[in-house]
């Protein structure tokens, strides 16, 4: 009955219509995707059937497209610019990277908004609910400017492809044209939804039915966004692992095969999770930026909190990322073994060392932030003495983690060591040691978080001693098990060794989920020693947060480059050869420089976007004084900061 009533109301009626239209648009791709398949079947002319065999699915199909062109150096125009820019590849690389940066940010933020908005709606405490709602709203605002930048960069990328890689782009469009149209349509739908979502935020915020519609729009926005990304992914995964064509690159009339190539799904999953991590990183940096430029205590408090939430979201999404990466790698190996070896052991292996350093930097930053975060809580003093243990374990693990298998050294140093592998630390270079190290780092980070949770509380549950004993036992067993397996790994054949990572990861995940669950349960009814004094965190920690964002950007540039350059001299692996004068793999130093340049450009852009955001800021930021907490316990957090 309530629903009927709602439909009667004009404003609500419109919102339902909008939702309906959006949902209909959602079905569009399915329709379009099926359409050509059926029409092709009808057009089949028996007279001149030429059959081909799918390179991946091994099915027979009717040749219905041109073969991949045999290009020569003349097919690759370039600008007459000084050295690195005279390589068309570098231009495409830079623009594509920027587009991907902004694109993934724009795709990730709605995911957070959706979650935070829902958290806000569900909150029983309206002050807290309002605070989350404002936060979500803030997030969309940041992403709105980025959205237009993404679109502009997308257009730029398109033109760059058309002008600099005309033959390749023509071939790719000849295969993917239906998907490209769907892509364009979805883009429209995404834009529409986004604008309604953002501009309708306050109007639809009636705390009831309309708010739910709004939240649904948020979900819809994410569906559009993810579909868009998956379509675009199919192009890059096609280049790595072509399917739906025969060995000459001739299209065989099956769109699903084209789309569903070997690496499409692993790439989709990896990218969605990766986007969330990356988006979280940007929001973290935004919060840090606002914190550092904040003028009032109230602003400081709010942005401190925002940074905390965003950091939490980014790290939470970071946890499944390695598994997605593992799946992707596995599929790469399964598709072409030498592609996997080029990545992990061959030409590109040196870049994985940089990756290791960056990942280690992430762990350190998170831990450091949590340590500093304890500073804004009264009663955290007893926990500070554990910092040195955590740091030591993390450092030892990181030493192992970053030690490369093959060392960078001079010939004389090599002679002194007696091989590319150092007899002592060379052993840290293999998978077994790395698994042990990364799991150790994960566990120390979990411990940091548990300590952080406890910082301003005195445990009240009667089973506190048992709970602590269980947790200490669990972590001890997990750590010892992890180290033991890491050492064991040296003494058993590789095929068994691969399986060892499973119990290691299981141990870590158990610690994560069970540990946090026990801890949360123990916090029930705990006596607060003081409120979290939002805004009292050190300035250093905010630079740390900024570093977190930058690390993510760097990682993305690095891993993207690795994924892309593993094709070596192929446009589409083993189907369409890259015959451009710059089809060689760059020297590592050069690649690293271009990546760093891309990171720099992106951050200049981003800081500009942040700065633009200042002009449309909220008049006031929400208060961070929590009514549930007794104010009298500590100093008043925000001078006169009640609503």
């Amino acid at each position, binding site marked *: 009955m309530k629903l009927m009533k709602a439909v009667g109301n004009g404003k609500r009626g419109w919102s339902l219509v909008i939702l309906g239209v959006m949902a209909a648009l959602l079905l569009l791709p399915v329709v379009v995707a099926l359409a050509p398949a059926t029409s092709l079947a009808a057009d089949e002319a028996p007279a001149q059937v030429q059959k081909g065999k799918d390179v991946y699915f091994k099915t027979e199909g009717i040749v219905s497209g041109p073969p991949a062109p045999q290009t020569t150096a003349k097919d690759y125009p370039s600008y007459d610019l000084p050295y690195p820019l005279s390589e068309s590849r570098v231009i495409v690389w830079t623009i594509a990277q920027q587009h991907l940066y902004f694109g993934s940010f724009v795709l990730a933020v709605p995911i957070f908004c959706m979650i935070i908005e829902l958290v806000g709606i569900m909150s029983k405490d309206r002050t807290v609910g309002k605070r989350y709602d404002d936060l979500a709203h803030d997030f969309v605002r940041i992403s709105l400017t980025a959205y237009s930048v993404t679109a502009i960069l997308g257009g730029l990328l398109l033109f760059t492809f058309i002008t600099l890689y005309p033959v390749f782009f023509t071939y790719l469009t000849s295969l993917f044209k239906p998907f490209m149209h769907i892509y364009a349509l979805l883009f429209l739908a995404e834009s529409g939804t986004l604008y309604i979502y953002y501009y309708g935020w306050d109007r639809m915020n009636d705390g009831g039915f309309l708010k739910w519609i709004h939240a649904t729009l948020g979900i819809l926005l994410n569906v559009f966004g993810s579909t868009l990304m998956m379509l675009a992914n199919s192009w890059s995964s096609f280049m790595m692992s072509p399917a739906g064509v025969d060995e000459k690159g001739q299209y065989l009339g099956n769109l699903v095969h084209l789309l569903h190539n070997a690496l499409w799904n692993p790439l989709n999953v990896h990218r969605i999770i990766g986007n969330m991590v990356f988006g979280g990183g940007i929001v973290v940096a935004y919060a840090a930026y606002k914190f550092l430029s904040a003028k009032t205590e109230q602003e400081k408090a709010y942005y401190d909190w925002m940074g905390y939430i965003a950091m939490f979201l980014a790290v939470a999404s970071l946890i499944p990322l390695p598994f997605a990466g593992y799946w992707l790698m596995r599929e790469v190996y399964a598709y072409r073994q030498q592609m996997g070896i080029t990545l992990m052991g061959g030409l590109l292996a040196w870049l994985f060392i940089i990756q290791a350093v960056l990942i280690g930097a992430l762990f350190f930053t998170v831990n450091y932030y949590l340590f500093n975060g304890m500073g804004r809580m009264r009663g955290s003093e007893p926990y500070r003495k554990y910092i040195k243990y955590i740091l030591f374990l993390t450092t030892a693990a990181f030493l192992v983690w970053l030690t490369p298998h093959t060392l960078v050294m*001079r*010939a*004389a140093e090599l*002679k*002194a060591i*007696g091989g590319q592998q150092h007899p002592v630390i060379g052993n840290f270079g293999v998978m077994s040691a790395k698994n042990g190290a990364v799991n150790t780092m994960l566990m120390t980070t979990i411990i940091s978080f548990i300590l952080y949770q406890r910082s301003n509380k005195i445990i009240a549950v009667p089973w506190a001693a048992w709970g602590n004993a269980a947790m200490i036992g669990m972590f001890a067993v997990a750590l010892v098990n992890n180290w033991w397996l890491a050492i064991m790994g040296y003494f058993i054949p590789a095929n068994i060794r691969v399986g060892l990572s499973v119990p290691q990861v299981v141990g870590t995940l158990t610690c994560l989920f069970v540990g946090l669950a026990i801890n949360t349960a123990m916090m029930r009814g705990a006596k607060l020693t003081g409120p979290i004094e939002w805004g009292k965190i050190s300035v250093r920690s905010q630079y740390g947060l900024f570093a977190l964002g930058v690390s993510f950007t760097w990682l993305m540039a690095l891993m993207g480059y690795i994924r892309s350059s593993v094709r070596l001299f192929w446009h589409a692996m083993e189907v369409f050869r890259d015959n451009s004068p710059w089809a060689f793999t760059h*020297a590592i130093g050069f690649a690293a420089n271009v990546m760093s340049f891309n990171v720099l450009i992106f951050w200049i852009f981003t800081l500009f976007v942040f700065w633009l955001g200042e002009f449309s800021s909220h008049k006031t930021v929400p208060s961070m004084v929590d009514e549930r907490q007794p104010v009298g316990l500590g100093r008043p957090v925000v001078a006169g900061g009640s609503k």
Partner: protein
Amino acid sequence: MKGIVSVGRWGKILLAGGLVVTVLGVSVVFTTAQTGKAPEAPKAQMPGKASPEDLAAGKAIYFRKCVWCHGPEGAGDGPAADRLWPRPRNFTQGTFKIRHTASGELPLLDDLFLTVTNGLPGSAMPSWEGILSDKQRHQVVEFVRTELVKDRDFTDKENETFTPISFGKQVATSKESIERGREVYMNKGKCVECHGPDARGDGNATQKDEWGFPIRPADLHKCWNFRGNRRDPYNPTNIFREVSTGLNGTPMPSFAEALSSDQRWDVANFVISLCPKKNIDPLTTKPNNDFVIKATFVKGELPTSPDDAVWKDVSAAYVGLGSQIMHKPRNFVRLVDDVWVRSLYNDKQVMYLLEWDDRTKSLGTPEAVAQTADFKETPPAGEPIAMRQYPVFNDAVAIQFPSHWETLSAPEKPRFVFGDAKNSVDVWKWEADGSTKLYTGQGFDKLEVRAGDSVKTPFVGFKDGVWRVMFTRTLTTDDKEHDVQFTTGKYIPTSFFVWDGNNGDHGLKMSISTWYYTILLPPVPKKAYIYPVFAAIFVIGLQFWMVSKFKKGSKK
């Protein structure tokens, strides 16, 4: 309230530091067993019977690690033996070179253990320390001496004696001791007869061992190659021991009777003094290669003789040489295993001085030229390489550069032996017949002589087992297509080849080095003196700014 012991702040720091050092020290003591090197012979004891467990364990080790060279019967005839020089030990007769016992006696078990532990540098026998545990090494020695030494019995009390040498009182090395040692070497000891006047093993190069295999007296300038050096090449104790015991099975006699212990110490000190002091790589027991050949700038004319004073200030680079075993004919025996390289340049020319030890000066014979057809195939397995007789060819030496190193993007180079199809090399080769020729190489089989006389050899000489050859060329030439061009301050890949004519070295049968670098040392750039001043001024400015800012801040 103060603590029980009152210590200052620095005291505390020292205390903490001391604790750390103690912990480290203890762990070091526990993990290193190599301490104390006072010369003392191991106790001589008639060994008892080996236990069956040790024999079984030793046998398993022997048939995994040792059998490949020493053979299933221990006759030194394993699958590898025929391609090895020196040939692996034949255990059957119980003849062992490296001992503490008197000439002709069996070695102590400790001697065998030390040999297995340290290997025999200069031969294929590696050090087994770290690969086999102490216990395993003992076990394999037990197996060898019980089962494989067939003609003699270590436990035969009637026929076997073990008289360890006496080290006497060690004579510390000194100018006088070395001089006395030289005197003994030249006269009383008659060492010079085999080892040669300059002690480069060139006295008598045609000796044979007990089994009829050719054997050469040691080159005493290469202590890292002494079989008995126990991986401690600069320690005279090992020389003293060998002079005292002699080397069973070889023409090297024991001097325990002929020379007093002091005289033997003097000889040992003298021998060690001959050996250039280099850092010895513990893994290969060879000197570390000096991968950069630094050419020093000379004002005015370059020297015309290797004895010119200008060379004294130029350090010689050690270039290790391996055998060309990559391409037919594979060369399994190379008698020249290093060459010392020095380089100079002036504003017009670059000069190299190459010095290497060769026991004989060889000039090609007509007979050899007639047999060059045999030099295409690898010597077959199954024919003892140590017995192979070669006709005599020219001694020769060559330097190789990439023809166009400046256009190659680092680290790419031509293939290190005679280049490849893509990247050619420029080879300067001098032969003992006095010819100096230029070659262009594009692969093993594609080394072609080319016309040109830009490379000169202003000095060539052979004396007492050492060849010395000087090469010069102008820094740049007109033939940019083939000739390497030298530029100051750049790393120019360089490698070396040596042929020992007496060993049948000819064509691809030769000693080879890997790629080294020549660099013509540029003068120190002016900015190296200017920039530091700027940096210092900048820091001073920064300091003043900080201090003044800080003072202002603290006044507030």
